[in-house]
């Protein structure tokens, strides 16, 4: 697994971005960019290539699900692995995310081991 991957972490809560960055750094990933909702995530995507998107679901302006749909419908971004990290795990949410093309799904609260496990499944 390459730790030089460029990762975009999207969450409206600075707390969760901080926790996720801490975990990613523990796992050896240091090339991390933050965005506080789907709209700012799209701005970051336009600035340069990303190898992985890790996004919350519930966010103002643009949700993680809407971001996922936009990413999957854009030829430039459609192949970027997309990990949804969210408190929303009711059955309908999971179905919607899978239908929209999510690469994998982590439910909050999560451990560092759970993130490591999902990343190994997505990016090898």
């Amino acid at each position: 697994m390459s730790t030089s991957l460029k990762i975009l972490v999207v969450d409206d809560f600075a707390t969760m971005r901080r926790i996720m960055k801490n975990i990613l750094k523990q796992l050896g990933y240091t090339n991390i960019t933050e965005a506080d909702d789907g709209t700012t995530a799209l701005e970051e995507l336009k600035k340069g290539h990303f190898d992985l998107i890790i996004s919350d679901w519930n966010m103002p302006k643009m949700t993680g699900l809407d971001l996922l749909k936009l990413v999957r419908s854009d030829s430039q971004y459609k192949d970027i692995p997309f990990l949804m990290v969210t408190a929303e795990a009711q059955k309908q949410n999971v179905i919607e995310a899978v239908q929209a093309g999510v690469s994998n799904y982590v439910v909050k609260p999560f451990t560092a081991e759970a993130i490591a496990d999902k990343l190994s499944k997505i990016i090898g």
Partner: protein
Amino acid sequence: MDANIINPFIHATSNVLEVMAFVSCKAGPPYLKKDDRAIGDVTGIIGLTGETNGTIALTFDEGSILRVVSNMFGEEISELSHEISDAVGEIINMISGQARREMEENGRVFQASIPSVVSGRGHAITHYSDGPKVVIPFTTEGGEFAIEVCLEF
């Protein structure tokens, strides 16, 4: 209000704090609250809609939330600040999500709003329904906190 409504919040609160902050907490006996005054110094509030409508509030005293957030961040946080408020919003978001999953397994489906946070000693907690306000007190190593559940039934 029956135990099938209260228990998911007790389970979710204990699990979220244990997994995300490595903090063990012990729930005390639930009781009904008559006034709006917060027990804690910082409170997260989230609205629920679905089978019925209501709000959940999570209110921490200073000692308990400083311990929780310090553990979550892996560094000592010594005073209440914007980052504490942000953390409380995320914590109640996670508790709401887990409790709603458990309630869904019991056939009760709810949706949640984006949380809001209020802070300051003696602040008011406004619930947006006329249901009974059930308080579940918790003790931790750092201090005390409580969950308030207020749903129309």
